[in-house]
């Protein structure tokens, strides 16, 4: 496991149609949150709303129809993107021979400093590393129960 989540789904629809659902704000609001407002262009500001939480600021980072769509979004609601920890969400669409489309999503950047103060407290720079949590968890799970404090 890196400091990222990767998931995949095979959609029984052509790539162009999947791209439309993936990137059209009115469609996005039906599968990601309850509202979505953005212009489909790199660098454009965006925001997504979950009624129970508020608006989450975002920025469109990459638009390469019909294969690649990427945005950075804030972890904290109702705050500018710059003032909140944020993660990067990258979608990749692949057309399959049988007419289906594979959608892969990678969300990354969970293991960065929530605040500059915390970064200072760590006195080191750890951008760009990988978190191999799964190896550690596997090791722990393999231990006899008595050996785990």
């Amino acid at each position: 496991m890196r400091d990222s989540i990767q998931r995949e789904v095979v959609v029984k629809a052509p790539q162009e149609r999947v791209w439309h659902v993936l990137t059209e704000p009115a469609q996005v609001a039906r599968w990601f949150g309850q509202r979505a407002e953005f212009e489909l262009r790199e660098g454009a500001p965006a925001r997504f709303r979950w009624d129970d939480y508020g608006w989450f600021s975002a920025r469109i980072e990459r638009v390469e129809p019909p294969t690649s769509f990427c945005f950075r979004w804030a972890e904290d609601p109702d705050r500018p993107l710059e003032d909140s920890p944020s993660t990067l969400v990258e979608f990749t669409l692949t057309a399959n021979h049988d007419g289906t489309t594979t959608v892969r999503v990678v969300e990354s950047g969970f293991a960065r400093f929530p605040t500059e103060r915390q970064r200072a407290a760590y006195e080191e720079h750890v951008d760009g590393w990988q978190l191999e949590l799964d190896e550690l968890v596997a090791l722990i799970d393999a231990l006899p129960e008595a050996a785990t404090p």
Partner: protein
Amino acid sequence: MMARTPAPSAPSATEHAVFLALADDTRRELLERLVRHGAISASALARDLPITRQAVGKHLDTLQRARLVRAHKTGREVRYEPQLAPLRHASTWMDGLARQWDDRLGRLASLAETGTVTPGDEPST
């Protein structure tokens, strides 16, 4: 009532601390050694590592701040004991996030295939 779109789940301070503490090869190595050998001293930990005893101490401090390690004083010796709950907690959080994405991708697939979200999954507006 219709199911709501699951809200985003930001990592808590605890998870952040765990991710950060494990963002370093040496600290992961140290934690693995502690898990394998149980509670041992910083000197014993440092013995066959290419880093100084002081560097090991600094890394152990970081692991302690993330509550992944606890120091135990026995006489004059301090032994470090691995604490696995925060690690499991972080792992569970990652699993929850993976499920959220599965739900979102499921709705996206349904929209692309049928033009509607599967009944029960439709987010309320």
